[in-house]
């Protein structure tokens, strides 16, 4: 019934919207292109979600052990993203804020006010070759679509929604660009100063450290190549590289490689013994983007996460949660579950906790000549335990400034597997976004 309602709502918005804008006339008024020193815009989003719970899953037990929410739970999400800029001479001030509001079985919640500013920086551009930036900014490094092992100075993106805006960090950076004739067409260098102190990027890593990062970009023989590094003590030192190249008009290949020195991870065994492992991690990614003559796009990536857990380590973690849940049921004692929770955040609970993943996204642009309509299906597979997620989606952008997406995610996997032990069996969501 709830699913039918989401479908009806999607259809109603598209149907009514197409009439609402049908009578609009077109013209090219030159006042539309008049440049103003300021800009204000953004979007407002509504996203109701229906979760189908897996009451036998370990992560359900960890999170909802003391509640009974039935077989499904609903969540109503709202988002307001605002951005504004002001430009004068060589200076530009840019701010992007993000306000999330959620109503769920836990009641009303919103994001931390300190984290509402996604970006806010001043840039100075004395020439097209040189740009200085100071403030909170998102520096996204890497060529991968779903995963970026070389994204050393940004927050991890969600492979379920890789195009979502991410909150930045407070940094100072410079872009210096130089163009050439010959096989090397462009070289640019981006040094970054990354402070981590109390109340300044303190969720990044060890505080009271001034970190340095940098990226060198080359367009060499029609191939994008980046070399990047980071050091300073808040996180262990790391170096990386990426590349991207069009082999033909419809085939692109890309890859990333990262070497992380002295990576640490906390491992819990099935008895609850916690140990810390320290090792040098190598992560890499290989991917292609292929467009067929019928406008079907395939994005395929293999990701080796050198910092991830083995299948056995993840299985032990779930076994320990199950033990903790049994103890809670038998004696009302939640101490083991609390212990499991302590190694979850930023460890087992991070995005992509395992070692090997395959990502495949197939999207079809405007099938059956339905303009602005893009159906797609995405799957993320954990190669170590053969569990996976499958997400079909329908996207419609045919109404001016309105974007409607209906998406479902099904999680498949046996006991002790990453996707099999997630809190939900499935999720269905409708996202309606209006840009202004």
């Amino acid at each position, binding site marked *: 019934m709830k699913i039918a309602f989401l479908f009806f709502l999607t259809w109603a918005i598209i149907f009514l919207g197409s009439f609402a804008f049908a009578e609009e006339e077109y013209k090219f008024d030159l006042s539309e292109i008049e440049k103003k020193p300021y800009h204000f815009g953004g979007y407002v989003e509504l996203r109701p979600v229906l979760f189908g719970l897996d009451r036998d899953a370990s992560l359900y037990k960890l999170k909802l052990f003391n509640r009974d929410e039935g077989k499904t739970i609903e969540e109503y999400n709202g988002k307001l993203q605002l951005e504004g800029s002001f430009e004068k001479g060589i200076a530009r001030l840019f701010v992007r804020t993000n306000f999330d509001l959620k109503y769920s079985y836990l009641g009303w919640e919103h994001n931390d006010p300190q984290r509402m500013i996604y970006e806010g920086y001043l840039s100075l*551009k004395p020439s097209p*070759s040189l740009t200085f930036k100071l403030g909170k900014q998102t520096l996204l490094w890497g060529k991968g679509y779903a995963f970026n092992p070389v994204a050393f100075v940004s927050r991890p993106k969600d492979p379920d929604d890789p195009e979502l805006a991410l909150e930045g960090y407070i940094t100072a950076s410079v872009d210096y660009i130089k163009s050439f004739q010959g096989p090397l*067409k462009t070289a640019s260098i981006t040094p970054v100063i990354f402070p981590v102190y109390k109340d300044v990027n303190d969720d990044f890593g060890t505080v009271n450290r001034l970190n340095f990062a940098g990226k060198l970009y080359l367009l060499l023989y*029609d191939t*994008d190549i980046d070399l990047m590094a980071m050091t300073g003590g808040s996180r262990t030192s790391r170096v990386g590289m990426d590349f991207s190249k069009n082999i033909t008009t419809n*085939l692109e290949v890309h890859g990333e490689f990262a070497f992380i020195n002295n990576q640490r991870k906390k491992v819990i065994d099935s008895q609850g013994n916690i140990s810390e492992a320290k090792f040098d991690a190598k992560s890499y990614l290989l991917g292609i983007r292929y467009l067929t003559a019928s406008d079907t796009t395939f994005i395929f990536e293999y990701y080796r996460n050198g910092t991830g857990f083995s299948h056995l380590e993840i299985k032990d973690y779930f076994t320990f949660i199950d033990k903790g849940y049994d103890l809670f049921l038998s004696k009302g004692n939640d101490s083991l579950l609390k212990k499991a929770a302590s190694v979850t955040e930023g460890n087992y609970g991070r995005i992509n906790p395992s070692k090997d993943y395959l990502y495949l996204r197939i999207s079809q642009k405007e099938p059956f*000549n339905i*303009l602005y309509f893009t159906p797609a299906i995405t799957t993320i597979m954990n190669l170590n335990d053969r569990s996976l997620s499958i997400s079909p989606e329908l996207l419609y952008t045919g109404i001016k400034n309105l974007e409607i997406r209906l998406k479902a995610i099904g999680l498949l996997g046996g006991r002790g597997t990453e996707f099999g032990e997630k809190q939900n069996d499935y999720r269905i969501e409708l996202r309606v976004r209006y840009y*202004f």
Partner: protein
Amino acid sequence: MRGEIQHLILRIRFLAAKSGGVYNTKKIHLRGLDMRNILRILLVLSVLITGVPAYAAIDGTQLLKQIDRNLNPESYEMYRKLINVEPNGRKMEYTFFSVKKGLDKLAGVFLAPASDKGRSTLRLGDNMWLYIPNVGKPIRITSLQSVIGGVFNNADILSLDYAAEYNVEKVEEKGNEYFLQLKAKTKMVAYDRLNLWADKNKKLPVKIECLTEAGMLIKTLYFKEIKDFGGGIVRPSVIETDSPLYKGYKSIMIFAKIKQRDFKDEVFTLTFMPNIESLR
């Protein structure tokens, strides 16, 4: 007649120079022959062999280059409105600012609608990238893809000079028009073949058919409403496009504020993509 002979003289001078022959601006001396004698012999031979005077031959490449220059200066800035019209009359409009330098550097940014504002594109020869502000980094795209929905694809929006991407295979006169058959220089070009009809007097395109290697028609571009943009730029201000692949749909491109402008090479780089709007 006099003008055509003059053109032939220039052409022979060009060929002589290209083949290493020695010439000065007044006379060409090849194996002791006077320039005028060569011309006379060529004219007589051509009439005898083909029955058609040689001065009627058209240099397709030069003509195509002339058409390119009449459409745009080599380096420029311009504004365009792209409109997709559906069979039921419903329209979607996009406003696009673009800059070009030399033969193969082009960059642009969408100014409207709000959902696409800030999306920028870059083309360096056969390489194309798309930058989406929310995503925050440029991604490589292909020329056949479309950054917006509808009949236009990236190659239409980020089009380079025709002469940069195509060789002229055949050129002929058809009434008041030239008809050029063009073949892509490389496999990286979006349309393998173009049939181009150009106004003979204005040397501006009237209609272009875009075809696959097998000769299948992908779309037809109609050039309309010639307008004086100032600075000596007089060209069609509207391009209408239809496609047998999108029956009943139509796309329209309206041009405004085309003007010659020079840019530094660094503007046409991945790192500069988030800043393209600052060039306005």
